[in-house]
């Protein structure tokens, strides 16, 4: 007795519709950022629900700004988000599920085999993306989790159709090829539509100003040379700023950091040393900045440690602030425990204080915005929005050697 395809078809349809909803939210969030502004993102396993505060949205932002969120990033500002391919794919499976549902017992073995095999592709892609999330981003995007679940439903439904499919007639030999072709067309169509209407960002790339001084004073800034430096770069960073961490990770993921001969100007957003602020945005950042300065050739290692331990270091800084420790002794102790007495002593020295002061004076001499991070290539500022979604596109046009 042949099994009915109705239940598997309903499972596939449910998965496809769920995936369609999540992928559409994801694509629309991505598309909204094409105006170069910041927008809220949907980031919940409940379709359309708002994220639980900014922290709840962080996973989705991290995924969206990552190198893995889109393809053809060098050709199109922000690239073509992969969620568009998911939308097309889920639209196909929604149609195919309706076909199985309506055809019922008339559906052939080849239809069952097709959906049983090809229905695994979304879940395989999900597995790849989940591994990337864990290993590269260190966080999960809730909307992506929704898509993972949807792909699992499609795969489960597909496998269910295989049960008892052998009792059916094979059906048309060419049909699987037609379906596969249709799947390809469906998958590519949203991406093609997106690319066709996406605006050109080239005129906006050089709209963010530049440095007044071409050359920083020799020996003042921190040198962070990459392995294969091709282009000098200047960055203003605060080791305790979350966006600095995100941009740094992006430059690492894109393999760009190794092609830069970076000079780092520290701009801690901490009023303990930065007179440009009335209150500390990142308490403890002054001491951590001094640690980066004191680290000399190990500056990148200390900087990356600070990025990695931002939450913990900020808590230490907050404690210093609450206790009225102007010397930031708690933060300095955390630094000493990790990097040893010599570096700990250096952080408390007048020399480190003066050098950090020269970094801040360099910011003043250039009248740069009191914000971090800032990336300058050949004296021109790379706009903030071009350091996240548009990074590859901007570099392809302004410094193509970095993205080759």
């Amino acid at each position, binding site marked *: 007795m042949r099994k009915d395809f109705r239940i598997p078809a309903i499972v596939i349809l449910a998965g496809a519709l769920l995936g369609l909803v999540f992928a559409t939210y994801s694509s629309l969030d991505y598309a*909204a950022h094409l*105006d170069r502004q910041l927008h809220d993102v949907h980031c919940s396993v409940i379709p359309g629900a708002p994220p639980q505060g900014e922290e709840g949205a962080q996973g989705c932002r991290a995924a969206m700004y990552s190198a893995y969120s889109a393809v053809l990033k060098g050709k199109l500002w922000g690239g073509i988000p992969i969620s568009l391919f998911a939308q097309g794919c889920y639209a196909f499976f*929604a149609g195919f599920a*309706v076909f199985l*549902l309506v*055809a019922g017992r008339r559906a052939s073995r080849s239809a069952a085999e097709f959906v049983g095999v090809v229905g695994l592709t979304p879940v395989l892609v999900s597995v790849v993306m989940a591994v990337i999330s864990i290993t590269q981003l260190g966080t999960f995007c809730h909307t992506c989790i929704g898509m993972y679940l949807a792909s699992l439903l499609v795969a489960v439904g597909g496998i269910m159709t295989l049960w008892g499919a052998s009792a059916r007639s094979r059906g048309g030999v060419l*049909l699987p090829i037609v379906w596969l072709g249709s799947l390809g*067309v469906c998958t590519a169509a949203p991406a093609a539509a*997106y690319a066709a209407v996406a605006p050109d960002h080239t005129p906006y790339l050089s709209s963010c100003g530049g440095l007044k001084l071409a050359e920083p004073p020799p020996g003042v800034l921190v040198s962070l040379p990459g392995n294969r430096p091709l282009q000098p770069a200047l960055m203003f960073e605060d080791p305790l700023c979350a966006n600095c961490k995100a941009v740094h990770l992006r430059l690492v993921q894109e393999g760009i950091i190794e092609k830069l001969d970076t000079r780092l100007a520290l701009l801690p957003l901490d009023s303990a040393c930065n007179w440009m602020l009335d209150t500390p945005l990142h308490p403890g950042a002054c001491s951590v900045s001094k640690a980066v300065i004191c680290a000399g050739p190990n500056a990148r290692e200390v900087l990356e440690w600070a990025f990695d331990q931002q939450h913990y270091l900020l808590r230490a800084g907050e404690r210093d602030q609450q206790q009225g420790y102007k010397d930031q002794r708690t933060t300095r102790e955390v630094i000493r425990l990790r990097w040893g007495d010599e570096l700990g002593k250096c952080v408390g020295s007048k020399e480190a204080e003066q050098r950090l002061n020269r970094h801040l004076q360099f910011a003043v001499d250039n009248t740069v915005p009191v914000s971090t991070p800032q990336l300058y290539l050949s004296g021109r500022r790379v706009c903030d929005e071009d350091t996240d979604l548009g990074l590859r596109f901007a570099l392809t046009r302004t410094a193509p050697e970095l993205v080759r």
Partner: protein
Amino acid sequence: MNPYPSASAFDVQPGEPPSGPPYLGGVAGLGAGLLSLLIVLVLVTSGVSAAAGRLKNPGHAAQKPAVALADHAEVAYCTPQFKQVLQRVLHSCGLSDKTGRRGCQPTDVRTFANITDTDFNALFTPLKDRGGVIMFDVSGKDLDDGARQLLREKWEARRGARYFFIVARASQTGTSAKNRALSHERANSVMFFLQELTRDPDLDKKVGMLWLGEEYAQLSTEYCSWSTSRPGQKCNEDAINRTAFISWVDCRL
């Protein structure tokens, strides 16, 4: 997507009632697939077009919040009056970059500052903790070790300040002309040391020099309590005026 099944794709067993026309499943699937795709395409293109529109014509809501620009410190003692005097002195006496002049003589200061001696000194009172007093020997212009040490300390404590001031004086012992020259030499001694210390080619743009001789804004013994280069030395009216007052000034002009 076109999942039209051929007639052979439908597997109807003998005796089973057909559940509808053989092409119904294909048509329904195709219709559902196309409808889904159409919805996706409409949503995507409208989302992108809306963003493109905002990019081209950013509304007020899209204006980025103004970000402060990095600038020098501006603290409470930078009163309008203080800044006015500071500005006059700096611009009129010149930081030597534009006018080729360096420093101001007592008559210049009196003219440009346009305030009384007492008011002039009072302007610098808030700099008690920020500044220091370099003391010199009678008729002397050379810096001793204590003077160098204090100068180094004060110079290195720049923080966000823009200008460094040297205000040299002489006691009222001797002629006015001699004291004017002596206070000039004292100011120069400080400046030369800073040049040696910093090797900064732009030092002239940071340091403002005034030499007041004995004629203008003499200090009272009240200033003996300030941070001096000779903390153990007896301080009287003569001693406190054989000095150069030094300080960074945390004001924007």
